[in-house]
Structure formats: C-alpha cells, structure tokens
C-alpha cells in the first residue's frame, strides 16, 4: 500500500472546509449566475427598455398622429364651407385658381374654425393653402391661405395671445387679433429651398394626379420630413391633406404643424421613466434598412453621444429581442426601435417610416444585473477568505499543545525511561501515557532484538547516524563485526566525532550515501566482504545495517566467471564478448577500434588426423596466444569452434595494425608439439573491420570482419586482411546469395530466355538457351556461376541447366512457338559432366529434343580432357552437336579448337565488335575461317549489333549470326523481324 503523507491538523481541517465552501459558492454561482435567474434578470432589464419604448411610442402616437388624423378626418367641413361661399358668390370652383378676393373670403371663413381646431389639437400650427393667388400684387406663384402657429399647443387660451401668424393677409391678422411672426409673409411662395414647399405641393400633386375624390382625402395625407418654413425659422414637421370638393376639384391643402421642439417636449413627457440613463429619438427610416435619420430627441445622453450623428445605424439582435448600436466614440448601446403608425408616410410619397427609438448604454441598462453579479461573486469570495482564516486559527489552537508534546518527545527520545509533561487535554494526555508505555515496550523490544541479532547465525551490525542530535546508535554486533573494542551493553550511543574515525579506520574513506555500499575488508582472517544497507528515511538520520556477505560475494564471482568464460580456453565466450564489445564501442570517444575475426586454418585436419584432444590443445594454444591482445586492452573471445574474435582499440589505425602484425609474428614462435615429435605451426586466417570507418555498430563490424576473414579463407589463407567495402559490395552475394542458390538448385526451377541464331539467309537456325535466374541478391549469371563454383555446387548447376533448359524448350514446342528443326544451344559447364543418372533422366523426359541439342562448352572455363570427351560422347550418342563458346577469350583458344574439334565455333563478341574497322580482328577471323573451312567447322558470330558488322561478317563467309542486331533474347519465341531478314538476304545475296 502507498504510504499516505501525514498532514497537519490545520490542513486536515482546512481542506474539507474549503471544499465545502467552494462547493457552496459554486452552487450559488451556478444557479444564480448561470442558471435561469441571471438570464432572466438580464432579459427583464432589457425588456424595461423595450417596454418604455413601446409606452413612449404609444403615448407619442396618441399625442401627435392620432390627434392629427382625427382633426384632419373632421376637416370635411372645409369643402362644405367652400361650396357655400362659392354658391353665395355665384362662382365656380375653378375661380379659386384666379380670384384672390374669393380666396380671401374662403381663407377668412376657414381660419376662424381652424383657430378653434388649433387650440384643441396638440399641433403647434395649422395651415390652409389654396390653389390660387394670394393678393393683387403678390408674385403670381404665391398661393393664398393662412398659416397660424400656436406656442401653447393643447391648452385652450381665450384670447389668441399664444398665436402668431406665419402666413396670411394682414387684414385677417387684424380681424382675429393675431400678431405677425418675425418671418411673416403674405402667402405661400415656393422659395426654391429644398423641401420647404413639399408640405402643400406634394399632397396637391398626389390628389391631382390620382383624381382624388372627397372621400379619399385621407389617402393623400402627407407627413413631411423636418424642414423650415423660412430659412431662420424653427424646424417643423407637417401633416397635410388635400381639400377636395364634392365635384372632385382639388382646391388646396389643409394641415397641421408640429415644431421639432414640441416633438421633443412630447417625447420628453412621454418618456416614461424620468431616468437619465435612457434617451430617445424620433426619426425617419428608409423601409427595410437599419438606418435612422434622427428628427427629434430627448435625454441628455443623446446630445452627449449622438449630437454629431446625421444618421444612426443599428443592428437587430434577435436573440435578446433588442437592437444594438455603437455611438461614434464606440460606446455600446441597446436600442429598442419601434415603428410609428403614420398614415401618409408610405406608398404615395416614398418608402419612409417613422420610428421611435429608446436607447440606453449597455452598461447602464445592465448595471443592476452587473452589480448583482459582482455582489454575488464577492459574497462568495468573502466567506471563503474568512473560513480560511478561521480554520487556520482554530487549527493553531488545537495543534499547539500537540506540537509542544511532540517537541518534548523529540528532545527526550533515546532516553531509557521516558516521562512527559501533561498538557491537560484529555485525549492528548491519554496519548502521552500511551507513548510512555510504548517507549517502555520499545525499550524492551530493542533489548530483545539485540539479543536475537547476536545469537543469530548471520552477523548483522546496526548503527543509526543522527546528525541533528550528534549521536550514533551502534549495536554490539557492529563492534564485533568491524573488530572494534568489545562492549558489554547490547548497544550504545556514541558521538559522531567518535564514530566517523572508527568507520574510516574499518573501511577507509567512506561516505554514508546511497542505498547500499559493498566494502572489502582485509583482516587477519583473510578477505571479508561487508555490505552496508543505508536508509536515510529522514534527512540527517541514516540507518545502517552491516552484513557479512563474504560467502555470497565469492559465490557470485564464481557464477559470473562460469557464465562469461569459455570453459576450454577460459577466455570470454560469445555472449560475454558481445556485451563487453558493445560497451567498449559505446565508450570509445575519439579512438578507433578494430574487430578481428580469426579462423584456425588447420583444425579440421588436426581433428581428423590426430583426434579431438589434439584439436582442443591446438585451440587452447591459440587462445593463449590471443591473450597477447589483453596487454593492449583488447577484448578476446572464442566465438565458436575454430573462430575467435578480438576487439582492440587504439588512437589510430596504424597502431592497431602494428599490434596485429606483432601478433602474427608472435604466433610463429608457437607450435603444437605432437607425440610424434612433429611440431605443428599455428596457422590462422583473419579479417579486420574498422570502427568507425567501416561501421559503427557491433553487428556490422562483426559481419564485415567475418566477410574479410572469409575472403582470406577463400584465397590465400594464413593472413589478416582488412575489410574492403567495394569487395564486399561485389562479393557479398557470396554470403547472401547461397540461400537463394540452394533453393533454385533444389527446386530445379529457373527461367530461360531464347536468343535466335540465324543463317546467312535470315532463317532461324536455332536458339541459345540463356538461364535467367531471379535472385534478389545476385546479379547476372556470372555471379551465379561464381557462387555455384564457390559453393561447389557446379554438378547440381549442370543438371539444372539441362533439365530446366529442356523443360523450357519443350514448353515452347508444345506451345507451338518452336519448330521441329531449330537447334537448341545449351551452355554446359565445362568442368563437370552429367552423371549417368542425369543423362538417363534427360533421355527419359526430353528424348525427342536431344538430337537438336548443341552442347556449348565455354572456352574460358578450365576444362579437363575427361569432361570434354564425356560431352562429345553425349552429343554423338544423341545425334547432337558440340560448339565452343566465347572463342577468342581463353588462354589457348587454338589448342582447344584442335583438341576438341567441335562442330561449331562461336566467335566471342569481343572479336566481333567493330570488326569492319579493325584489321587485327579481321586477321583473327580470317585465320579462323581458314581453319574452319578445312576442318568442316562452321563459324557463328556472337554479339552482332550493327548492320556494318553483319555485312562484313557475311563477306567473310560466317555461317551463323547471333546478337542484338538479329534479335534479343526472348522469354517467348517470336519470328525474326522481316526487315532484318530482308537485310540479311540482301547482304548474303551480295556475298
């Protein structure tokens, strides 16, 4: 079980308390901050704005548009009045457009009622514009009518003292006792400033255009954007309708005005809460956009943040059901945008809509929400801090007496009979008593223990080194074991100053560190091994247990020796060597190293001739010689039977080479003395590979050394050769390919290619069967042969050639690719001959093909008379032919020719190459041709690669042709290229 760290009561108290509090806090936070409450609170706060906006909107609508619509709806009286006047004056409606006197009458009549209306409505002004002239001498375009403004909208005042006339005849102003305003004018004149005349022109135009009827009046209602009646006048908006008579004549426009100032006042009044945190504005929005052009506003925040804004863009936040926007300097706002129901803003006069937006800074609107969140967080944090503090203090109160007790205990520990002060806490005092009791028990127990230790068979010495208290506990057994003075007590305490010299005297310099120390003591009774097991469980306190392990150590040493050493030679065995060598290579640094593989040359001979005992002696003799390398720090090993390995390090290669040379010299001195008195010299082959030039890892080094040794073994023997990488690359198939070769030979399966041999006329005379082994490590047939030769597998190869070759030929015959007469040129190995069984097998299976066989004998192969004769016999017996292959490459071509008298001579391609240009080759050919003709030998040119060569050879009378020009070796037989056939016929015809 894992030992649990002991913790202070304080921590023990604090931990659970803390967890409890954090949990509590987390639950509160979870439910309030992240649960529904918080979201709902936020939503509520946002809703306040939306609701306020809606209330404001409704109130605003009631105070303005609803009022106006009602007023204008009741304006039907006007057309009646006008009709009446027309009747009385006996005038037609058309007269209005020309007769200013008539207009004056109409204006007078309507003004009276309008003033009453103005007092009743919430409007700041009322106007009538007639589609006729204002006065005799006024500009022609100036329209008649009146425009009266009221500075006390909504409140009835008896006299007209709150009124001002903006437009209208002075006589009417006099009549109704209305003062003229600063910018008073006689009538309505379109001064050309943009939009200032829209308020009457637009509804007029709309009514004219649509031929409106009286009942449709409200359809043409027009709500203007803010404008100024006169350039320096205040900003106003108007709501106007055309006046249409019963007969459909449009005679003018009637409407109400409200100053932007008044709009702002109403907006301010309707603003439900008196809160400074919200501000409002009324504006015009292009339908379908989120951009509002502000018209009127209320609330100081608006002026503070949006005074400069000619337009306000906002974004809809669907999730919170509110819009949001940013003021120019980047403050974030919530905005609740509500569309006003305003007949007369849509359709006829473009796509505008009036909106009221309530806005509040996000931080203001959510201030309570944010404050609540902050408060909750702090109310969680504060108890946490206090709880920690409390737990700390209480912990201290509880732990203090225990701490004092512990302190006392610590000071008194070691003393035989422990007596402790009481702290007057019941539980703790009980604990104290128990401790005293325990101490006595321990005392007894240690006494017993010492006794047991002493009487046990194993000698165990114990000491406890307590740096803090400057004392060391030592058991009597320790004294005895280390041969210190005898003591009577089972144990004793001594000072550190006394202990350390004693320890040093026993072990020499020693440091009490680590887990265990093994020390050799040389005493009068011989060598003694002492193991000290150290346990520093607490800093400054070391418990040491000393055991006499002499017997163990000796046994261990013996075992190790047996494990690592070769029993016969008492040098490292293969396993130990590998271990040591790898370690050596690892720690080599800048030095070089050589791995040398040795192989005793004559062991087999000695074993066979003199018996194995002598062989063993031979091995031991060599092993002893090898020990010379030990002087140079080498590692030596018997690797197997007669194989030894040495690893030797040196500062440079030359140094090692010198060592090896010295060794080889040294070897000459030793001989194995036979009973017969014959002195058998030691003869050994060696291969050497370099670290780090050849390889860096042990296995590669070993393999290379082995390869180098192998190369020596298969050549000169008795020398040491260094590894040569190019040689290795070249010949490594020797090592690696044997497996594949054996498989091939066993299975007797290998593929063959067929290369056509043509006559002078371009007719196929036969095919040379070319072996195509598929080896991964061996390239080319020559390597296969080399390997076969090296492995002494040539007979097997010979039978493979015959069997597999003929099998391939038979398959081609059966496939219908090969005709009945073509010759089959088979490359026979000159230095072997088929056995009788082999011949018999061939005759059995491929009897029908044998008469077509041409046995090729390689001229380059050293051949023996016997084998050659054997093959000639075979050919004769089957009715086949013989041929000399590669003629012109051997040592003694002419001799063989004489000797063998083949049916066909195959001229090697090295003689054919560019023969048409080379007189020397031509001479050889000429000679050969002469000889062949006389001895009825036919000549075959190998390696014909160009048309020139072919033509020249033809002219010399060569019989057969083989080579890339004629055809390449083919895995499946195909006819000759007709072009080549034609060429050959051409050349031969010439010849």
């Amino acid at each position, binding site marked *: 079980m894992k030992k649990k760290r002991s913790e202070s009561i304080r921590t023990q108290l604090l931990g659970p308390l803390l967890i409890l509090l954090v949990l509590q806090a987390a639950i509160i936070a979870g439910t309030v901050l992240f649960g529904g409450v918080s979201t709902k609170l936020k939503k509520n706060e946002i809703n306040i704005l939306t609701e306020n906006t809606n209330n404001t909107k409704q109130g605003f609508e009631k105070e303005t548009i609803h009022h106006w619509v009602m007023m204008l709806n009741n304006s039907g009286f006007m057309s009646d009045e006008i009709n009446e006047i027309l009747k009385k004056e006996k005038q037609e409606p058309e007269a209005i457009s020309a007769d200013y006197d008539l207009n004056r009458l109409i204006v007078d009549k309507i003004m009276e009622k309008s003033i009453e209306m103005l007092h009743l409505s919430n409007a700041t002004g009322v106007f009538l514009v007639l589609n006729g002239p204002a006065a005799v001498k006024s500009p022609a375009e100036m329209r008649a009518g009146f425009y009266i403004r009221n500075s*006390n909208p909504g409140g009835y005042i008896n006299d007209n003292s*709150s009124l001002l006339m903006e437009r209208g005849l002075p006589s009417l102003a006099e009549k109704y006792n209305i003062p003229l305003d600063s910018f008073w004018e006689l009538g309505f004149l379109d001064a050309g400033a943009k939009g200032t005349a829209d308020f009457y022109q637009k509804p007029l135009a709309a009514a004219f255009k649509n031929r409106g009827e009286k009942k449709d009046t409200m359809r043409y209602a027009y709500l203007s954007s803010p404008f100024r009646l006169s350039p320096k006048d205040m900003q106003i908006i108007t709501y106007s309708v055309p006046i249409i008579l019963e007969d459909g004549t449009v005679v003018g426009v009637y409407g109400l005005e409200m100053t932007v100032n008044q709009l702002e006042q109403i907006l301010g009044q309707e603003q439900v809460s008196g809160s400074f945190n919200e501000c409002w504005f009324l504006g015009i929005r292009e339908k379908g956009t989120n951009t509002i052009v502000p018209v009127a506003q209320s609330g100081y925040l608006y002026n503070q943040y949006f005074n400069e804004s000619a337009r306000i863009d906002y974004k809809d936040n669907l999730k919170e059901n509110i819009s949001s926007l940013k003021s120019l300097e980047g403050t974030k706002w919530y905005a609740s945008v509500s569309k006003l129901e305003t007949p007369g803003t849509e359709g006829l006069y473009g796509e505008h809509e009036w909106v009221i937006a309530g806005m509040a800074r996000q931080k203001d609107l959510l201030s309570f929400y944010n404050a609540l969140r902050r408060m909750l967080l702090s109310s969680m944090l504060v108890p946490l801090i206090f709880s920690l503090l409390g737990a700390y203090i209480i912990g201290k109160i509880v732990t203090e007496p225990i701490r004092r007790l512990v302190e006392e205990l610590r000071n008194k520990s070691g003393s035989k009979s422990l007596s402790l002060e009481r702290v007057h806490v019941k539980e703790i005092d009980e604990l104290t008593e128990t401790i005293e009791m325990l101490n006595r028990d321990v005392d007894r127990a240690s006494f017993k223990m010492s006794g047991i230790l002493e009487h046990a068979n194993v000698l165990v010495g114990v000491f406890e080194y307590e740096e803090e208290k400057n004392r060391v506990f030592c058991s009597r057994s320790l004294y005895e074991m280390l041969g210190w003075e005898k003591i009577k007590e089972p144990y004793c305490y001594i000072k550190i100053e006394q202990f350390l010299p004693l320890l040093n005297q026993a072990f020499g310099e020693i440091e009490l560190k680590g887990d265990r120390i093994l020390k050799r003591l040389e005493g009068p009774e011989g060598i003694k091994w002492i193991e000290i097991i150290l346990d520093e469980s607490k800093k400054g306190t070391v418990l040491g247990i000393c055991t006499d392990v002499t017997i163990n150590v000796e046994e261990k040493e013996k075992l190790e020796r047996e494990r690592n050493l070769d029993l016969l030679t008492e040098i490292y065995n293969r396993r130990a060597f590998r271990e040591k060598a790898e370690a050596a290579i690892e720690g080599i640094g800048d030095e070089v190293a050589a791995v040398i593989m040795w192989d005793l040359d004559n062991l087999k001979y000695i074993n066979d001739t003199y018996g194995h005992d002598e062989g063993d002696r031979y091995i031991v003799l060599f092993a002893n010689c090898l020990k010379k390398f030990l002087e140079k720090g080498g590692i030596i090993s018997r690797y197997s039977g007669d194989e030894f390995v040495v690893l030797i390090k040196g500062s440079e290669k030359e140094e090692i080479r010198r060592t090896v040379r010295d060794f080889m010299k040294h070897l000459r001195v030793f001989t194995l003395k036979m009973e017969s008195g014959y002195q058998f010299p030691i003869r050994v082959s060696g291969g050497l590979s370099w670290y780090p030039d050849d390889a860096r890892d042990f296995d590669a080094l070993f393999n290379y050394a082995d390869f180098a040794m192998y190369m020596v073994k298969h050549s000169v023997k008795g020398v040491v050769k260094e590894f040569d990488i190019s040689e290795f690359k070249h010949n490594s198939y020797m090592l690696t390919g044997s497996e594949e070769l054996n498989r091939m030979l066993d299975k007797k399966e290998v593929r063959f290619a067929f290369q056509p041999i043509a006559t002078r006329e371009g007719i196929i005379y036969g095919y040379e069967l070319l072996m195509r082994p598929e080896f991964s490590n061996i390239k080319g047939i020559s390597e296969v042969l080399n390997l076969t030769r090296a492995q002494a597998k040539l007979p097997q190869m010979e039978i493979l050639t015959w069997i597999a070759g003929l099998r391939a030929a038979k398959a081609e015959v059966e496939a219908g690719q090969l005709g009945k007469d073509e010759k089959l040129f088979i490359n026979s190995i000159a230095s072997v001959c088929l056995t009788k069984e082999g011949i018999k097998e061939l005759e059995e299976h491929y009897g029908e093909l044998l008469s077509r066989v041409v046995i090729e004998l390689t001229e380059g192969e050293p051949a023996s008379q016997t084998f050659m004769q054997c093959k000639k016999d075979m050919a004769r017996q089957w009715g086949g032919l013989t041929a000399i292959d590669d003629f012109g490459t051997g040592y003694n071509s002419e001799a063989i020719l004489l000797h063998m008298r083949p049916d066909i001579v195959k001229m090697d391609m090295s003689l054919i190459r560019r023969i048409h240009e080379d007189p020397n080759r031509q001479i050889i050919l000429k000679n050969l041709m002469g000889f062949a003709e006389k001895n009825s030998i036919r000549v075959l040119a190998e390696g014909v690669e160009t048309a020139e060569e072919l033509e020249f050879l033809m002219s010399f009378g060569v019989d057969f042709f083989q080579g890339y020009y004629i055809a390449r070796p083919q895995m499946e037989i195909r006819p000759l290229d007709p072009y080549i056939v034609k060429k050959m016929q051409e050349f031969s015809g010439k010849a």
Partner: protein
Amino acid sequence: MKRIWMLPLIAAVCLSLLAGCQKNDPYGLSEENPISVTVWHYYNGVQKEEFDNLIRSFNENEGRKQGIIVKAYNKGSIDELSNLINESINKKIGSEPLPDVFSAYADKVYEIDKMGLAADISSYLTPEEISEYVDAYMEEGKFDKVGSIKVFPIAKSTEILAVNQTDFNKFAQATGMTDEAFSTWEGIARVSEAYYKWTDSLTETPDDGKAFFGRDAFANYLIVGSMQLGHEIFRTQDGKTVLDFDKETMRKLWDNYYVPYVNGYFGTYGKFRSDDVKTGKLAAYVGATSGISYFPTSVTLEDGTSYSIESKLYSLPNFEGTIPHAVQQGAGMMVFRSDERREYAATTFLKWFTSVENNVKFSIGSGYLPVKKVSGTQETLKPFLEKAGDKSPASENLMIGLYTANRYRLYTTKPFQGGDKAREVLQNSMSVKAKEDYEKVKILMDQGISRENAVSDYLSDENFDLWYQDTRKQLETIIGE
C-alpha cells in the same frame, strides 16, 4: 460553530459593498432621484425658442448633475397666464395643477403673496448672490419689511422707438424733416401730422393720409408720462396707495396721443405695432425692447406689394423739458411655496438661468436686458455683441436698452391691491376711446364730411373732461378711496 463569529464581519463587508452608491446632495436630489420643476411663461416666438434652448441645456448639464428637470410651457400672454394661475389657485374645473414657477409682474406676485403662496427666494440665495443683481430689480420683489424676496428677476425690458427708416427717409427728403423730432412726444406728434399730410398729398383723394406712429403697452405712456410730468399716479404713502391723477398732466398726455390719433396721425391696427410696420400701416412705433425680434426687414401690403426696409432704433421720447423717464418692465419669476426641495430646485434653475453667460445669451436673442450688474458692462457684453454682430438690430437694441436703463429714470409702479385692474383701466381708457372715436371720425368722413370737421367735436375740452372724470372714477373705485 466556527462560522458564527464571522457573520458580523461578512455582513459588514457586504454592506460596505452595497454602500457608496448614493451621494449626499442637498435635499436628496441626484441624477438617479431627480425632481421635475414646471415653469409657465409667456414667451412666444423667438423668445420661446431661446428660452427652450436654455432649458434643454440646463436639463442636460447642470440639471442632470443636480437631479433637476425643468419643463416649461407657454401659457399665452402675460394676462392669459395670470388668469390661468388664478383658475389653478381656485381649482376651477378643467384647470391644470399649479406650476412650480411662473412668469409674473410684481402686481400679480403681490396678489398671490397675500394668499401666502409665494416662496421666499432669499432663503436660497446668499447675500452676496443677491447683491450681484441690479438692486432695483431685486427691490421690486420685496413686499415686506423683513426683506423676503418674492420675485426672481430674470430679464427686464424697457421701451424703445423703432422707425422704418426707408419710408421715413422718403418723407424726410420730400419735406426736410429730421429725426431730431423723435426725442420728444411733442416732436413725434408733429412729425406724424406732417407725415399724414405728405402721404395725403401723394394721391388725389383727400384725407387719405397714413398714420405715422403707434405704440404698444399704452398704460406705460400714462404711468411713465404722468410720473415724468411730476405726478406718480399710484403713490404709496404710509402703506396705503394714494391716487395722483392730475388733470393738467392728463391733458398733456391726451393732447399728445388722443388728439393725433383721432386725426389719423397715429394708429393701431394689428395686435402689435410691429405688425403694423410690417404691413406698411405705420412707419414708427414705441414698444418693448423685447419685441425687437418682430421688427420687420420688409413691408408687405395687403395687396401683396412688398419691399425691403431699413430699420433704426431710438431711445424712448420724453416730454419736452422733463427728466427722461422710462418704464422698467419684464416679468420676473415667482416660485410657488411648496417643500424646500422643490423651492430649492426652482431657485437653483433660476440662478443658473440668470448667470451672466446664460442671461446675456437670452437677452441678446430675445431683446431683454440682463439682470446682473456685471452683465450690463461693456466688457461682459463685448464678446456676445461681436458674436451677434455689432450693428445688428439685436445689438443695437440691447445697447439702447442699456443706455435707457442707465440714463433714464426707470420707473415701475409699486404693487398694490388692485394694481392689476388699475393698470388695465389705464391701458384701455384712453387708447380704446381714441380708436373708437377715430372709427367714428372715419364713418363721418365716409359720409363726405371733411376730416377737419369730422374731428373737431372730439377735440373739445368737454370730450377730455368726460374721459378724465370717467377714468378717475374708475381708478378711485379700484383703489378704494
């Protein structure tokens, strides 16, 4: 157990976190806890715009900081406003609740103060602050001996002569008249007569001359004129109002108004004389400096003829050989008595409104005169005048107004019980009679009688005596003699 001793601490911390949100403002006013103050006034047109602008500015800045929102409403003319206040005080059906502050002349305030409804402003002003205002203005609002102030002066006005210089020049060139005559009432009458005759001569039609002059606030003519001529009509003597309606003096005033009027040399047509100048019916008038914004830049006749005009302002004319006198008018603001919080809020606004910068701004825009001593000085005014244009009518108006205030004896009637009504009598008795009699003259003229003959009856001493006695009786009834 171990957490109990912590609880008080936790509570303390929580409290301290919660606290600190509220600032201690006087009377618990703050941005979060504002009070709204309603103001009724009689400002109209440009003045209203100017007034509203200042109120908006207050609400957005000073007012917001202090938690005071001011809402202002125009309630028609000063008389209409006065009526509405009465209705509200009497809780007449359909009347609105009383405002916190309203525009009023001292008379009106005096009346309301008698009912114990006017708040004492001096409690909210330090003596230093009070002394910043022109003493005479503050004096107006002191009705008792303890020194309480019931009217907060916010803007004052006096009277000024405005002339359509374009038309006058034509006349002057033709007749050799100069504007020297404008300094006396007698001169005005003379010029008017000459103007009538000159305009009459321009057409074949006999007696179709045009009136030259008219005036607003007719009561001022009688009150100031009488004062100037040595008789204060309503004189306070030992706490009682004594009538000094001197016959000779009245005859002089009669001769210089009624006589030219019935002759057609003077006239009144529209609501204000500035309207009459606008419509080409008069060429000059005397009116309050505060009406200057209505003085036209062009004349448009009933028949549509229109032409631009130059204007010129002159100091108020006086009677020959008298010390110049002018009326001091312009309503102050009265604060209704309520709780200290409201009264404090109201006076705070009024103080802000009469601070030098705001007061001068309002004055220039509206034609009123600022109420603080320092506001009337050249140094203070200079930047404002430069901004408005040194030669603009507004600047000229202010300068002449201030000149009048400095060089003339400014006079205003002491408020007294019935002062309102007495003033109304003075306002109408002569002016209305003049207008009515002129109408009668016109009827006679229409019947073919020459102007001279038609007028002659009205110029008799009997006519004057009748008027004098009638008016005197009316006044005596009001004063209760």
